[in-house]
């Protein structure tokens, strides 16, 4: 995961900066001193748990009779037994269901959030008078704790609540099944689409107005301008926003937990499944689930960064700015013709 985030920017060294850096004194010793507290803590709260989870996932909690008829309690080494059990054992249905739910929620919510977020950014970019108000409004879904928004939507989706009232339906949203999934998706999209909107808006406001002027002179209508100017130029901001949302949705826990509840198969995500296992002291399989989720998150991050080239670290700052300028110049030139 780490190497993937650095690789694209690092592959393109910037010659002028390099030379300047070589002249400056190296300050590695001081940097190491300043960075070490952070790394010590990260080793304790990230590395240790990770290795510990890997180790624990190789054990299974057992209580049973051994060959001599004695009761054995404790843990036995099972190697990759937990993983085999998860992927092919009798309970594997629950895992595949959680894997599917996680994937389904992630891709549906992120797709909806992206569309809604980008439309919001467009609307906000055009709003001059109401912008301060909108900026405050759009932060509200973001700032509400997910647990609270879970409660809030459970209230809205009550059988005799406002949602059924407005839709004139009698759906049991918060029970089980597809309706429950819809409830989770609606609540998740509500909370997070504004975040994408904010990031995209920030990207939009860096597009020089002249680019649009030029395109207008060229006769491009609003939709054409959006497709050929706005979208390509906000792409870096949008990619980073979507990447964060993808990785965040993959570990979704609070919302289905509070809105629908634990051990509901239609909304059980991998995080909830792992939590439930550890709650029942099945640390071995809980750790295995956590490791599988971690690998899944890492793979998605890797694929996303490699294929779409999302720049998370920010090394490509200057390059992106340069590219934007070039694009602007190109449009201006084309318009001039």
């Amino acid at each position, binding site marked *: 995961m*780490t190497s993937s*985030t*650095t690789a694209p920017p690092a592959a393109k060294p910037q010659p002028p900066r390099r030379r300047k850096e070589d002249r400056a004194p*190296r300050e590695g010793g*001081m940097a190491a001193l*300043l*960075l070490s507290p952070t790394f010590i*803590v*990260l080793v304790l*709260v990230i590395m240790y*748990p*990770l290795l510990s*989870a890997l180790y*624990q996932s190789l054990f299974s909690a057992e209580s049973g009779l051994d060959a001599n008829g004695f009761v054995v309690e404790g843990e036995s080494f099972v190697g990759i037994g937990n993983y085999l059990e998860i992927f092919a054992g009798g309970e594997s249905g629950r895992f595949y269901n959680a894997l599917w739910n996680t994937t389904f929620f992630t891709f549906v919510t992120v797709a909806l959030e992206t569309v*809604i977020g980008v439309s919001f950014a*467009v*609307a*906000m*970019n*055009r*709003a*001059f008078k*109401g912008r301060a108000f*909108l*900026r405050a*409004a759009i*932060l*509200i*879904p973001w*700032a*509400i*704790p997910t647990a*609270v928004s*879970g*409660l*809030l*939507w459970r209230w809205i989706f009550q059988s005799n609540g406002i949602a059924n009232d407005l839709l004139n339906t009698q759906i049991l949203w918060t029970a089980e099944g597809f309706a429950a999934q819809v409830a989770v998706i609606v609540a998740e999209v509500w909370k997070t689409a*504004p975040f994408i*909107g904010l*990031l995209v808006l*920030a990207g939009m406001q*860096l597009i020089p107005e002249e680019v649009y002027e030029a395109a207008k002179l060229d006769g491009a209508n609003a939709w054409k301008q959006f497709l050929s100017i706005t979208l390509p130029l906000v792409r870096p*901001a949008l990619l980073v926003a979507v990447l964060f949302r993808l990785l965040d949705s*993959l570990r979704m*826990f*609070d919302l289905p*937990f*509070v809105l629908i509840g634990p051990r509901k198969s239609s909304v059980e995500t*991998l*995080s909830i499944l792992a*939590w439930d296992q*550890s709650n029942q002291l099945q640390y071995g399989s809980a750790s295995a689930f*956590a*490791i599988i*989720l*971690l690998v899944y998150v890492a793979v998605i991050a890797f694929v996303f960064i490699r294929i779409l080239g999302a720049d998370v*670290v920010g090394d490509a*700052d200057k390059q*992106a700015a340069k590219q*934007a300028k070039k694009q602007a110049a190109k449009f201006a030139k084309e318009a001039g013709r």
Partner: protein
Amino acid sequence: MTAITDRAPIVSTGAARKRPRGIGGAVTRWVGIAIVAVYCLAPFYWMVVSSFRTTNDIFDTSLLPTTWSLESYAQVFDSSNDFGRSLLNSLIVAGITTVLALVLGIFAAYAIARLNFRFKSAILAVIIATSMFPGIAVVVPLLRLFTDIGWINTYQAMIVPSLSFAIPLAVWNLTTFMKQLPHDLEQAAMIDGCTKWQAFTKILLPLAAPGVFTTAILTFIHSWNEFIIALSMANDPAIQTATVAISKFTGASDFQAPFGAQMAAGVVVTIPLMIVVLVFQRRIVEGLTSGATK
């Protein structure tokens, strides 16, 4: 983070622009504003309105309560709930997490943003990558460790795991802010006779104060909203945080889910955040768009 961040005056650039439009443009513009506002505010509004209804009218769907009542709030702060205690717990856990993350983050960010050494991007990438960690992968092993060492139902059992997302968030934000400060500052100070440390504390830190403050707000909001760690590490109502308490909220009666009280509790937990958001919206937007994780 991207091209946007280096000069992200999201607040100022827009106003300078002029985009003349006809009446049709104005109408679509206001429709757009209205849609965004209703989308963001309607559910929150419903929570607030419901919290002021009486228990009997709770299922009313009128836009304003027919009878305004503080009944639900009285239920929330009923002594049997200990909700005030949960708020205090949240404040302690989120506050200490924020302070620790900031202290460590300032040093790390200073090193990454202002010092010259190798593997800089790799180090920043490692720190950012850790923030992508699924919380559950940290919670499961630590739950076991904390059970063994008797840390369950303590503040540190919630604070230490929270650092796993708070530190990357703080380092990342602070690095972005510190990178934006002019690069000759410390050199000038050192020519005037400051040591590196003095240049850092007397020149850089005061200039970075707005960034530190923004980072503090963001880290605090994330820690305040944290759920899975607090849920796993504490089951004693006296120690659990507000987000967990609220999810287990049963109110005074067991007969029906106390929706009014739940909404009132939700409002109480959210109000401090709302105030922060309204007062510091510019800073928050700046911080979010320049490299936040959520």
